[in-house]
């Protein structure tokens, strides 16, 4: 029989340390955005009008709701209702996929208008307009990648709950995945106003 060493607080703090680096990563993009906006406010305004505010709003509401469902998954686990917890995990995954599908249609519409990094159209328009869309595609792309990773992560978590590897006594993997998911939501809380609302 082996003695189990566990430090749940340490495990959570480790997750937080990783999340700090994620914030630094996205702040770099936000700083770039702020500089480009300060330089070309007019062109950023024109470029931002190409985005559909309703799509961004719906996606924001979807992500906020998915943050709720992953929190409810934690509550359900704490109350020893594993099945309910799995259901909430799957709901979160469903919402995340809906987010990506809406994002896919948004990107398709923009690409259909000849707007994508390196496109002929962006090479011909003013530099501020192109800067907006280069940053937009990079930031939402990186954020979308995080959503994709979150979907995989939460699927694994749901599987581990089903197998009895995540229990009310040892919930750390679910807790840390939920922390990650909230961070993805947190980043979007800033991406949405920066690109859709402010310019």
């Amino acid at each position, binding site marked *: 029989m082996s003695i189990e060493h566990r*430090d*749940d*607080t*340490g495990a*959570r*703090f480790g997750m*937080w*340390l990783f999340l*700090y680096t994620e*914030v*630094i990563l996205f*702040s770099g993009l*936000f*700083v770039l955005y*702020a*500089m480009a906006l*300060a330089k070309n406010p007019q062109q950023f305004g024109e470029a931002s009008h190409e985005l559909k*505010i309703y799509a961004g*709003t719906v996606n*924001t*509401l979807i992500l*906020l*709701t998915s*943050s*709720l469902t992953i*929190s*409810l998954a934690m*509550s359900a686990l*704490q109350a020893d209702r594993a099945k309910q917890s799995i259901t909430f995990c799957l709901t979160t995954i469903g919402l995340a996929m809906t987010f990506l599908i809406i994002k896919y249609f948004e990107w398709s519409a923009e690409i259909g208008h000849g707007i994508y990094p390196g496109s002929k159209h962006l090479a011909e328009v003013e530099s501020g307009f192109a800067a907006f869309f280069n940053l937009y595609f990079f930031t939402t792309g990186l954020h979308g990648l995080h959503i994709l990773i979150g979907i995989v992560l939460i699927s694994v978590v749901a599987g581990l709950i089903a197998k009895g590897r995540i229990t009310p006594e040892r919930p750390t993997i679910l*807790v840390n995945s939920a*922390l990650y998911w*909230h*961070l993805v*939501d*947190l980043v979007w*809380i*800033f991406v*949405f*106003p920066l690109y*859709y*609302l*402010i310019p």
Partner: protein
Amino acid sequence: MMEHQQTPTQNKTYFSIWAVLVVLTLVNVAVSQISLDTLKVWTILAIASIQAGLVLTILMHLKHEARMFRIGIFTLFLIVAIFIGLTFTDVLYR
């Protein structure tokens, strides 16, 4: 590391935070539709920051974590502020 048991957050709290976040998002969209110039930018950013604060303290349980977690996040904000501040002074006074 000191073992710090997390206080379970009530579902009721999660639902009310969700409702507040949704309302604030809609307020932000509404604010963006009226022209207020510079004030608009700061209002929108302020509302987004309130939302971020709610996510960090309640949903991510910072409120119930050990002090070290708060020191960590404070240090992070300090680093980001220096990062943004120094970049801006460089760009504006070049």
